[in-house]
């Protein structure tokens, strides 16, 4: 005879059994375990009860649809206004900000020009020296 499953395994099997059919292992366990049998009866009773009395959808009050549509139309109108007013404001704000940033960058770049020139000259001189050294070698 196969070993009995534990009570914990039996509880798992009970839940699976409610969705389908009880396994032989569960039946075997229930023959020997009074507490699990009581548990199984309780689960079966509630499962059967809930399946026997499926509740239909409750008809909502007629005003619900009308109020939802009214609120949706109001929401749609609000979005159109936002698009018409907010979009030009956002675009012009973004443009103003970009202009300011470019102006600042140009100003910084102009101040850095002399230093950039010095760095460029030094780099070219270094490259010329390297070329001469390579040539000598």
């Amino acid at each position, binding site marked *: 005879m196969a070993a009995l499953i534990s009570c914990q395994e039996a509880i798992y099997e009970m839940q699976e059994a409610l969705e389908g059919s009880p396994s032989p292992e569960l039946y075997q366990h229930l023959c020997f375990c009074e507490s699990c049998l009581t548990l199984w009866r309780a*689960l079966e009773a509630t499962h059967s009860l809930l399946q026997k009395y499926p*509740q239909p959808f409750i008809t909502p*009050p007629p005003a619900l649809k009308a109020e939802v549509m009214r609120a949706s139309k109001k929401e749609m109108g609000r979005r159109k206004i936002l698009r018409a007013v907010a979009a030009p404001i956002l675009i012009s704000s973004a443009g103003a900000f970009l202009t300011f940033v470019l102006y600042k960058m140009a100003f910084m770049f102009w101040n850095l020009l002399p230093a950039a020139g010095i760095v460029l000259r030094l780099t070219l001189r270094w490259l010329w020296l390297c070329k001469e050294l390579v040539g000598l070698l």
Partner: protein
Amino acid sequence: MEKDLSSAIQRVLAGEIEAFEEIVETCQGAVYSLALRLLGDCEEAKDVAQEVFIRAFRNLSFYNPQKPFFRWLLTITYNTSMDWLRRRSRELKAVKEVSNLARGQSQKHDFNGVEVEELLEKLEQTDRAILILKYWYGLTCSEIGEIVGMEEGAVKVRLYRARLRLAEELRKEGWLL
């Protein structure tokens, strides 16, 4: 269970608001029923249902068409109902008397749907929602988990405990030995 609403959704996204009426017409029963069963009050359920559809309308562009629209709507319904309950800051317990159950004690009669509803109201909201979605909306544990924000395993555990809790209520009323 789900009517194909994909064309209505596309039309709403294109700006045709009248198409949203088709969505409301199809889904309002399911949304209102779930809200009512979670909140237990008709006026609040109507307000919540309205809020659900407004939220759905606002966020329709974020809806993933790969997933069922009905389930997405039920998720919003569940979350909105829970928010509503938190705002009320009290748990809704069963308000109805058990006398309807007690009246059957002296004479034999079958359990009926009203009594099942009354028993369910004694459960905690999440457990109630899981049982309702499982048995009356026909969803799997994985689908329920997506709606209530839990892993499938956690839903199974809650389902098991909810069934036991319901059995306990049945035992108290004398319907179970």
